[in-house]
């Protein structure tokens, strides 16, 4: 959704979700092409409350300017993750090769562990996480997905490994 970039605007949205019992799975917020408007991208669990109902409640907030549903296939979604994985010397090469397949960069490296940085579709991040898990995930941070509607009627670009 597009929000007025005013103090308290984000608090009001998350407050409303909490009050109504809508489950937020991820949330990312930041500036847009206009300085007075922020973009908030939410992943919402619609099993209990319909998307329609949630959307209608969002529209009642004064700071909310626009709400758009990002449907799979109709939108471009990306997410960034930092994953610190246990990496003893004998496993290091294997891990780095695995990272290359997914386009994950090594952001930092230590004696016993290394930190991957990966950007891509949320599903790719999920897959990468699965694959490195046997190596021992020390810490994981994900930004939550952001997305925009696809700009045109062309079929979507096949997702390259490089962001």
């Amino acid at each position, binding site marked *: 959704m597009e929000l*007025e970039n005013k103090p308290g605007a984000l608090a009001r949205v998350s407050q409303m979700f909490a009050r109504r019992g809508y489950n937020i799975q991820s949330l990312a917020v930041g500036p847009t092409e206009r300085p007075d408007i922020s973009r908030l991208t939410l992943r919402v669990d619609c099993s209990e409350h319909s998307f329609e*109902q949630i959307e209608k*409640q969002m529209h*009642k907030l*004064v700071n909310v*300017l626009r709400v758009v549903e990002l449907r799979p296939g109709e939108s471009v979604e990306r997410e960034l993750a930092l994953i610190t994985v246990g990496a003893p010397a004998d496993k290091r090469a294997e891990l780095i090769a695995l990272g290359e397949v997914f386009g994950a960069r090594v952001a930092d490296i230590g004696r016993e562990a290394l930190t991957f940085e990966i950007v891509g579709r949320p599903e790719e991040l999920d897959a990468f996480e699965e694959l490195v898990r046997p190596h021992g995930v020390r810490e994981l941070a994900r930004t939550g997905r952001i997305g925009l509607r696809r700009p045109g009627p062309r079929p979507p670009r096949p997702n390259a490994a490089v962001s």
Partner: protein
Amino acid sequence: MTRMLGADAILRSLEAEGVEVMFGIPGGAILPTYDAIARGTTVRHVLARHEQGAGHMAEGYARASGKVGVALATSGPGATNLVTAIADAWMDSTPIVCITGQVRSDLIGTDAFQETDATGITMPIVKHSWLVQDVRELPQALKNAFHVARTGRPGPVLVDIAKDAQEAEFDFSYPDEVDLPGWKPPTKVHERQVREAAKAIAEARQPIIYAGGGVINAEASAELLALVEAARLPAVVTLMGKGCLPDSHPLNYGAPGMHGSKYANWALNKSDLIIAAGVRFDDRVTGKVSAFAPGAKVIHFDIDAAEVGKIRTADIPVVGPLKLALSHLTRELKLLEAEKEKTVDRTAWHAQLQEWRALYPYKYRRTEGVLKPQTVIERLRDLTASRNEDVIWTTGVGQHQMWAMQYLQCEKPRTFITSGGLGTMGYGVPAAVGAKAARPDATVICVDGDGCFQMTNQELATAALERLPIVVVIINNGWLGMVRQWQELFYAERYAETHLTKQVPDYALLAEALGCAGFMVDNEDDLDATLLAALESGRTSVVDARVDPDENCYPMVPAGAASVDIIELPDEELDPERIVG
């Protein structure tokens, strides 16, 4: 453009909005504004005795007049004392603007003296709020605040103004336009939806209108009456909607819900088409939602899209202002009727509703020598009617409120003012004071409970000193009656903490101490005379009406039950001669 202090700008802004009365209590953080009041304003200030009282007064004022109510308080405890009234206005969609002082901007967030995060605390219970720290933002904030409070579905807003903003000097001019790019409440209705609704109504064999508070908020009572009469549609009217259709109208089947009548609940549950207007399928009306009106399609008219389909799927949603929607609907129905050769025969449905109404009236058992609460309310109703009094009723919350709903007759909107959604005990007296400020020409009568009265009675001093005379009739049974009823019926008569006693306090004496006239009555013979004395005293009067403590409120839909399974007054020892409807 005029150079002035922020505090003066607040008052000039209120004046520009057409505010005539405001209710409040001064304090440190709002002192500059009160100084501006002292230096002169056309807005009348009513000094309350508790900020909760001021808030409920603003609500009563708004409900009685249709205008936005205004409450003023200081920071810290002043603001927190307003919270209950704000939550109440939120639940019942009452337009009020609450202006609170806040500590100086450089002190915000430091736990300063009397500092609270008023906007944070009230966030879930306001339509929107503003924290003004820069005086130049003040006029636009107030302009926006009034607009948000009164447009779309009405409700409360909060404007929290830092003390230094009140004390700062700037060039003031009141904006002509609001600045709310994200605020677009509907101003039209979809003609196609209205036509769909009209077609469905024309074909329905057992239609019922379900009308509520939204009709009054929308000022659509005339349109509702026109619809009812043009299409000969029966209607049930909720607690919050009482008066939106005259209670005396033969097609008005009264209140449904937990303590509504059996016939109104059956009218809803047995219908094949519910025409919902300005209502929200509240649990007090529906009972068990999955069992509510299983055979009915639903047309839902409301200005708030989020309400449509929230509890019950709307087969035909019509979002938009009710005034427009209902008048368009009537027009479409007339067109359809002109086109059709044969209209659906509803004689059987009407006959059925009338039969149910005759079979299941409100009733209670009269007992020799015991004053019944329902009798007090009936006598109030009949005395004021015989005197052609223009009455505005307010109530507290509890058994007395339900009896007031059942037995009072309201013919016009904005004459029955009660706390429905939040169910705030103590609402009655301050709301009555606010209503009197809005309608000094009317007779304002608060039907209160003894439990409720003890919560906000100090506002009687406000009524006395501000010359806003009201009449308060306390249905005094010495208990927290509704809670006691539940303990009796569902907690095996384990009466935990519900006994108040009838004599402490001595209500008539308390009234005198607060500058009012006090009366007591505990029998039917003296009832009329006592009520008349109170009505004719010309001052704020309190009648301590001591009634049967064992009386329970029937009919009743037990919690969790389907509203169609409403329970009537148990039949044992039913003497037909002694039952009065």
